[in-house]
């Protein structure tokens, strides 16, 4: 994987003619570059093992600490590192907040494990586990107010959890009882997208509409490393940059698109690409919930201030299979997996809490209990998900039913009736 991260030689992404952002909370005072991406991290680096494979020194000094070396607040061993760009966004973090993040990540993991078990038992057709990406998703979603609107792919159940989506609603699509598990407006989260990258356009359009209305809401597009190769994602960045759309592009680089390593999608860090579109970008340790939370805040403040779109690459790792149908032993080895298990996001926060002297044992017990309760409730709720009647096939094709479809519906009803065993009540 090391080729993935190596910076290689990159040209300066800065465009001389780029109109500098009016106010830029992320840029260090006096910095020539308008982008937070151009801000050098002032934080000293510890010798502790790095979470996401340290890169060789980047060839362009302006990019150091922003789009090459992932920003990190919590080292793998749980120690808190000073991080000049992110620290201002973490001043409010206290032990209670850390505990809440720990519980969020633990419960969503328990729910995710339960979904895998339910799939194995034939209760779901398929499931895409998020194991390993809890910090990226919880750190993101907990940093944003409820009014902001998410457009995600299929793996962001951690985001859905933060949006108050019922776990059974998350699973219903995978059980095949519906095409949309929840009301997008009620949860302020669109139905998860299966077509890779398509939702990034939607986020941009939504953001443009919010800006045109003078509202402060921002939109968030969540997608993967593989999605970066889709034309839609590049186009979305063009639109966002041209129209200064208040949109956050949030890329979870979990190192794989099914079997394909991220190196196939990009020979330089993914966070470099937005710069070419004129979108400032930050690379952040996606297994460090505090770093993700802080980077999201920083980005959201900047976007909300009218400075236009921003891009975050959360460097993380998918510890499970792509989906329950996948056999990852065909494309990755145990050594790699072992290395990333050591960087497990929940373990990291656990270690940090321990270092702080927080009552971790108690917290672990609480996380286990809540996880078990949530999983049990999920199992029951999934079994109780209603199976739609055959006639539901014909609902909502258009906003009103046309006669041709009504006829097809009647034909189906007649057929079902003719097949029903004689004597059975209609």
């Amino acid at each position: 994987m090391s080729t993935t991260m190596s910076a290689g030689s990159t040209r300066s992404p800065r465009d001389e003619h780029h109109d500098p952002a009016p106010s830029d909370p992320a840029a260090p005072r006096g910095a020539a570059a308008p982008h937070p991406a151009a801000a050098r991290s002032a934080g000293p680096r510890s010798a502790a093992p790095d979470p996401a494979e340290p890169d060789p020194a980047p060839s362009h000094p302006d990019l150091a600490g922003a789009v090459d070396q992932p920003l990190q607040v919590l080292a793998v061993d749980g120690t808190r590192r000073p991080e000049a760009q992110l620290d201002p966004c973490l001043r409010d973090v206290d032990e209670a907040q850390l505990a809440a993040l720990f519980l969020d990540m633990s419960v969503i993991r328990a729910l995710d494990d339960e979904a895998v078990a339910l799939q194995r038992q034939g209760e779901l057709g398929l499931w895409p586990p998020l194991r390993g990406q809890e910090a990226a998703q919880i750190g993101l979603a907990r940093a944003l107010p409820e009014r902001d609107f998410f457009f995600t792919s299929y793996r962001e159940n951690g985001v859905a959890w933060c949006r108050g989506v019922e776990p059974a609603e998350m699973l219903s699509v995978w059980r095949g009882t519906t095409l949309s598990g929840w009301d997008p407006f009620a949860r302020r989260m669109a139905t998860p997208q299966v077509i890779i990258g398509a939702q990034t356009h939607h986020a941009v359009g939504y953001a443009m509409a919010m800006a045109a209305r003078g509202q402060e809401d921002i939109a968030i597009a969540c997608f993967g490393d593989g999605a970066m190769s889709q034309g839609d994602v590049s186009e979305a960045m063009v639109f966002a940059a041209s129209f200064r759309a208040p949109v956050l592009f949030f890329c979870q680089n979990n190192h794989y698109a099914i079997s394909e390593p991220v190196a196939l999608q990009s020979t330089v860090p993914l966070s470099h690409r937005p710069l070419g579109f004129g979108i400032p970008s930050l690379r952040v340790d996606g297994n460090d919930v505090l770093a993700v939370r802080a980077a999201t805040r920083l980005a959201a403040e900047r976007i909300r201030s009218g400075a236009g779109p921003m891009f975050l690459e959360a460097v993380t790792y998918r510890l499970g299979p792509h989906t329950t149908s996948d056999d990852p032993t065909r494309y990755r080895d145990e050594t790699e997996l072992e290395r990333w298990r050591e960087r497990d996001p929940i373990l990291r926060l656990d270690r940090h809490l321990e270092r702080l002297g927080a009552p971790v044992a108690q917290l672990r017990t609480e996380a286990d209990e809540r996880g078990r309760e949530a999983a049990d409730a999920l199992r029951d709720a999934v079994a109780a998900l209603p199976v739609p009647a055959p006639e539901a096939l014909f609902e909502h094709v258009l906003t009103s039913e046309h006669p041709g479809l009504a006829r097809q519906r009647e034909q189906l009803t007649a057929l079902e009736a003719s097949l029903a065993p004689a004597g059975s009540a209609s």
Partner: protein
Amino acid sequence: MTTMTMAAALNAALADALAADEDVLLIGEDIGTLGGVFRITDGLQDRFGAERVIDAPLAESGIVGTSVGMAYAGRRPVCEIQFDGFVFPAFDQLVAQVARLHYRTGGRVRMPLVIRIPFGGGIGAVEHHSESPEAFFAHTPGLRVVTVADPQDACSTMRAAIACDDPVILLEPKRRYWGKGEVDTSLTADLDSARVLRRGRDATLVAYGPLVVTALEAAAAAEDDGIDLEVIDLRSLAPLDRDTVAASVRRTGRLVVAHEASGTVSLSSEVITCVIEDCFEHLEAAPERVTGYDVPYPPAALEDHHLPGIDRILDAVDRTLGRRSSREAA
């Protein structure tokens, strides 16, 4: 002859083509190390190398568009689109480029591409994994659209498609990948012709792809009722072998067409129109069709109601024979 699954038969045809012609190459998402999500290309990268069995970046337009460039340079790319619902990002390359280059250049530029697409439903999948997009392509002049139905047919048709100098959209019925049959891997299909799979007197039942097996099962069930069905597998959807269908209808006087795709502006629209044009006077009853309803592909819990099964096909057969069907019963 060996017994093998359709998946293995396709794999064998691809391997033989790669071995026989240096210009043949495979390109698609996850087809190398993984061997494809359906394992159709299993082992081929190991055997032929990463230059000839190419794991593509995640971009379907890129897969097809890059293949166009390779074909300009004399290569014969076989593209894999992972699932039917993911062909649409490549739609522009297929419809506006691949389909027209030969015509545009007065025959100077050939596009011997094969676009393999696992298609159709019946596997309980989530959205965009059960589509039947054939009519979009069949509507586009300049593309050949072919389907396969059983292991032997899959192997011989794949061989013919790769050998063909036209661009071929090859639709593989994913729910039949694991069906087994005897295969002679040296046979090559005739891409232009439909196959009469079962001779019968009472009505002609036309199907293709995943519904060929269903049609044969329906014919076997009809036999118990004393109905003798002729079953035709269209195999090529564009161009269409209308002569084989018309010849059959001239004998039987009755026609039922079945497919998973929605009926409106579909292959059944086309087949029925051809029959009306070619042998209207031989029809003894209105042609019938059994298709997916005119709705987006539904959630898995409803797909059995949506997909034409034996009951719906036999109900249509009853109607065309003037027997009591569900519609009169209601």
